[in-house]
C-alpha cells in the first residue's frame, strides 16, 4: 500500500469547509476519489480547489483548518487503494 501526499498548488489560507456554516468536504478516514475536492485555498480573495489526487482513503490532514500555506506545502495524506 502506498501513500500519496496532497500538496497545495498555491500559497494562501487553507479551508476544510466550503463555507463556515457547512460540514467539511471530507472527514479524516473518509474515502476519496482522485478528482474529489478535499479543501480550498484562498489566495487574494479567489478560491482554488484542492483535489485528493489519488483514489483511496484520506488518512490524515497534516494542517489545520485555516492554516497558512506556502505553494507546495503538504495538506493531507491519502492511503492509495
Amino acid at each position, binding site marked *: 500500500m502506498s501513500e500519496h501526499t496532497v500538496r497545495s498548488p498555491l*500559497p494562501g489560507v487553507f479551508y476544510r469547509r466550503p463555507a463556515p456554516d457547512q460540514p467539511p468536504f471530507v472527514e479524516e478516514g473518509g474515502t476519496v476519489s482522485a478528482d474529489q475536492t478535499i479543501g480550498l485555498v484562498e489566495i*487574494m*480573495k*479567489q478560491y482554488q480547489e484542492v483535489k485528493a489526487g489519488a483514489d483511496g482513503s484520506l488518512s490524515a490532514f497534516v494542517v489545520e483548518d485555516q492554516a*497558512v500555506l506556502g505553494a507546495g506545502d503538504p495538506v493531507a495524506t491519502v492511503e492509495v487503494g
Partner: protein
Amino acid sequence: MRTLLVANRGEIAVRILRAARELGLRTVAVCSEADVDALHVRMADEHRVIGPPSATRSYLDEGAVLAAAAESGADAVHPGYGFLSERASFAQRVVDAGLAFVGPSPEAIRLMGDKVLARQTAAEAGVPTVPGSDGPVPDVHAALAVAERTGYPVAIKAAAGGGGRGIRMVESAEVLREALPRVQGEAQSAFGNAEVYLERYVPAARHVEVQVFGDGERFVHLGERECSLQRRRQKVVEEAGAPDLPAEVRERMTRSAVALAAEVGYHGAGTVEFLYDPQRTEFYFIEMNTRIQVEHPVTELITRRDLVREQLTVAAGEPLSFTQEEIRPEGHALEFRLTAEDPDLGFFPSPGTLTRLNLPAGPFVRVDSGLVQGGEVPPFYDSLLAKVVVWGDTRETALARGRRALDEVEVEGVATTAPFLRRLADHPGFVAGQYHTTSLEEWMTDGSEDGLVRRSA
C-alpha cells in the same frame, strides 16, 4: 477627536492616515502578523498586531479591533472600505464603547444593507427602482399583466437565485407564456423554491453612482461616477463625470441620491448606485454603500474636496464644511486599478516580493498605494497594488495623461495588470466613452484588431 484608530490595511489605510495626520490627530494602525512591515504600520504613530494573517482572524475580528482601540486610547475608529466597514454590529459596538464611528449610524448601515428594506426606503424617498412585480408572480396571467407595464424584454428571476443564477430574459408575451412555468420548475429543482419575480431587463445597462455626504442636517452630492468597466463584477476603471450622460439625467439622478440620504438622516460619506438605461434615459436604484469607496479619488480630483478629511470632521460632530452651491465639478478624472494579477494567466493572483516598484508621478497624476519597493504583496488580501488617478481639463486630456502614467509603471517581483490597462486605454470603445457593464468582457474575447485578446508579437 484626538486619537484615530484605522481599522484597515493597504492603500485605504494609508489614505486615511494621511488625512488624519493633516488634521493633527494621533494615529493608531492595526495589522495582522503578515503586515507588520507594511507602509500603513510605519506611517501611524503606533500600531497593534491584532491576529494571524487570515483576515477572518485579524482585520475581520471585531473583538480584536475593539480591544486595540481600547488599549491605545483611541476615541474614534475609521473602518475604510471592505472588512468591517458595513457591519452594523461592529459600528454598534464602537458606539457602545463610547467611541466615534467614522461612518453613518448602525441603523443606517442596517437599513441600507438589507436589499428589500433599502429598495422600500428608496421608493418612499421618490427614488426610481427597477419596474417589476414587487414580489413573486403566481401565474402566467399575473406575469403578462406585469410585463404589460414594464415592457419587453423582461427578466424572470428566481427569488432564491442571485449572482446571475436563475435569470431568464424573454423578448415577447408569447415567449413569456411558455417560459414562466419552465423557469418556476427550474427554480424549484435548483433552489428548492419555485417563486419567481419579474423585472424590466435593461440591455446595455451602465453602472453610474452618485457620491453623497450628510451631517445629519444637511445633505449634498458631489457629482456622479461612471463605473461600468468591470471584469467579473469588479470595477477596473472609473470616471468622473460619466461620459455622455445628459445634463437632465444627471440633475434627476443626483437629486434622487440626495433625497435618499435625507430620508435616512445620513451622516458621513455614502454612495448611491444606479443602473442607467441609456436607451430610455432612465435610471433605477441598485443599492447604497455606507462607506468611503475605492474610487473616491476621481470625485476628489474634480471637486477639489478631501472626502476622507470631511468624514473625520463630520464624525467629530462638525457640520459639513461646504454647501451644495460650493461644489463645482471641473474637468475629468480617471482611475485605473493596478492589481497583482497576471493578465496572461486569466488574471491569476500573483503575490510576492516587490523587487522593483516605480509608480507614476508628474502633473495631475495621483497614485494611492500601500506598498513600497522591497515590500511584500501577501496572498491573504485583495490584489490591489495601486490606484493610478489622473485629472485633465477634458476627458481627452485625462486619457492621454492616463496612458502616459501607465507607461511609467515598473513592477518586478509580481505580475500586474499594467499591460492590460494600457491596451484598454487605447480601445476605441473606451476612447469614445461608449461602453456598458458587459463591454469589457466582450472586448476581452474580441480577437479582432481592436479587441483586448492578448496577441503574441
